[in-house]
């Protein structure tokens, strides 16, 4: 079942707006695309439009947080990162209660091409002190994780795709900061987040047919890293594979490789991107081009593990 990340986000915000009166939402003229328009309609007095100016939006969110509100500033991932310096110097350095939520991350804005496809955001937010980084796997994960993000005191970056979210969970019971174990395995461990969690589950099934037992973990919280769960599961296998719709440098793959190289040296194969994207009429063919479909990943792993 394919659902939409941004629809889930838009609806979750309305729900959370009802529960939390301090919640305010800021938009840089993409409300129809990010679906914060639902919040704007439900609570117009708590919705603030700043026009096409992401830097102004992020610093303004800092102001709302200083005044005791819980601001959610939302935009396309690629353009929210335009405000990285504001995120670093004001939001993260002052440890302010600002929630930055991107949509259209990874290749999900397939039509708009490389300028809009953001494959570096997890890396550049993860390096910031105080910052929590969250990448939900599917639409049902969005509300429970966003609720915990809003309840958490401190800055958070949540990364969402656009409209392609294969369902992973029926009733997700997710805890922020805690890796979600979807499948146990003794030969390899697949660690994924975002849309790549569903890919990892498909890969595990394919490998099972070849008598390779693969564990699957949804690492929805990249920072802080759930080292305990990862090391426990990692100790059972020879090889670890990370899967992300993001550069292999500095994101989930980077975080996992750092952990195992330091605490439990073993092979970590990072699957992700090393290039910019390109425009495509279809999202899945873009994933395929960059080797991120279950078929391509399985073939690659069979080669590596043979």
């Amino acid at each position, binding site marked *: 079942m394919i659902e939409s990340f941004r629809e889930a986000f838009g609806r979750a915000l309305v729900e959370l707006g009802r529960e939390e009166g301090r919640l*305010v939402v800021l938009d840089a003229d993409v409300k129809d695309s990010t679906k914060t328009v639902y919040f704007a309609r439900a609570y117009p*007095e*708590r919705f*603030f439009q*700043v*026009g096409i*100016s992401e*830097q*102004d*939006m*992020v*610093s*303004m*969110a*800092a*102001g*709302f*947080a*200083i*005044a*005791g*509100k819980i*601001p959610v500033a939302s935009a396309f991932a690629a353009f929210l990162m335009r405000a990285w*310096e*504001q995120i670093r*110097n*004001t939001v993260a*350095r*002052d440890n302010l209660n600002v929630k930055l939520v991107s949509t259209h991350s990874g290749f999900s804005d397939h039509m708009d091409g490389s300028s809009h496809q953001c494959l570096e955001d997890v890396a550049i937010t993860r390096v910031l002190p105080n910052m929590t980084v969250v990448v939900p796997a599917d639409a049902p994960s969005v509300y429970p994780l966003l609720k915990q993000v809003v309840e958490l005191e401190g800055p958070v970056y949540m990364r969402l795709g656009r409209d392609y979210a294969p369902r992973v969970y029926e009733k997700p019971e997710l805890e922020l900061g805690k890796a979600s174990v979807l499948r146990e395995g003794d030969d390899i461990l697949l660690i994924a987040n975002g849309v790549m969690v569903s890919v990892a589950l498909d890969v595990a099934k394919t490998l099972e047919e070849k008598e390779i037992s693969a564990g699957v973990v949804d690492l929805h919280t990249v920072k802080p890293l759930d080292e305990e769960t990862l090391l426990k599961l990692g100790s059972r296998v020879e090889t670890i594979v990370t899967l992300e719709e993001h550069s292999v440098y500095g994101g989930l793959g980077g975080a996992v490789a750092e952990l195992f190289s330091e605490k439990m040296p073993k092979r970590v194969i990072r699957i992700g991107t090393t290039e910019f994207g390109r425009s495509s009429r279809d999202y899945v063919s873009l994933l395929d081009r960059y080797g991120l479909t279950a078929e391509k990943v399985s073939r690659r792993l069979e080669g590596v593990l043979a």
Partner: protein
Amino acid sequence: MSEVVSPQVKLRAMLGGVGNFHLDSSETCLEILAAVLERKGEKDVVILSKGHSAPAFYVMLHEMGLLTEDELYSFANIDGLPSHVLRGLPFIEVSSGSLGQGISVANGIALAKRGDGKEGNVYVVLGDGELDEGQVWEAAMTSAHYNLDNVVAIIDRNYFQLTGKTEEILRKEPIDEKWRAFGWAVIEVPNEKEAIQAALDYADKIKGKPKAIIVRWERD
């Protein structure tokens, strides 16, 4: 009898040991900060957007008895006063050092105040060189769009920025017309405490739009 030391002398003494760290930026800010901090009420917020004037701010805190002499002269020591202001210091709600963000932060605070029906102004002290930052103008549009008459920007027009004269580095004039065109009320005063205080009083009477006070340095 203890000797009365002027803020200017304190500032020079403080920065003499650290290569006159951004001394000019602080010197022209002394009277501005004196006026703004004297005026600041319980419900007001002051944002030092030109973080490079932190030394002037510390001199004022010392004048107000909020910093000891030892603390003042601990400037930029590893455990002493930070070279640019950090959140948590007296009056400092947001850290600075990175130029151009103060009005945006002020707008967030001002809109939150409005939403909660709270009173009080948000005063933002900016440099003239800082006006090069595009975000200043993004934020200026936002303040005007929301008719934030509780936002008051005070611009330290000292005609110098880091590597030269402002008009040679990047032309700023006509500054007043720029702010007016962006929807702000503009007040221009010389860099003297009493004049700045009068401008702050006058700004309070202007309703329905944000206000920019351009404080011109007319000395050498």
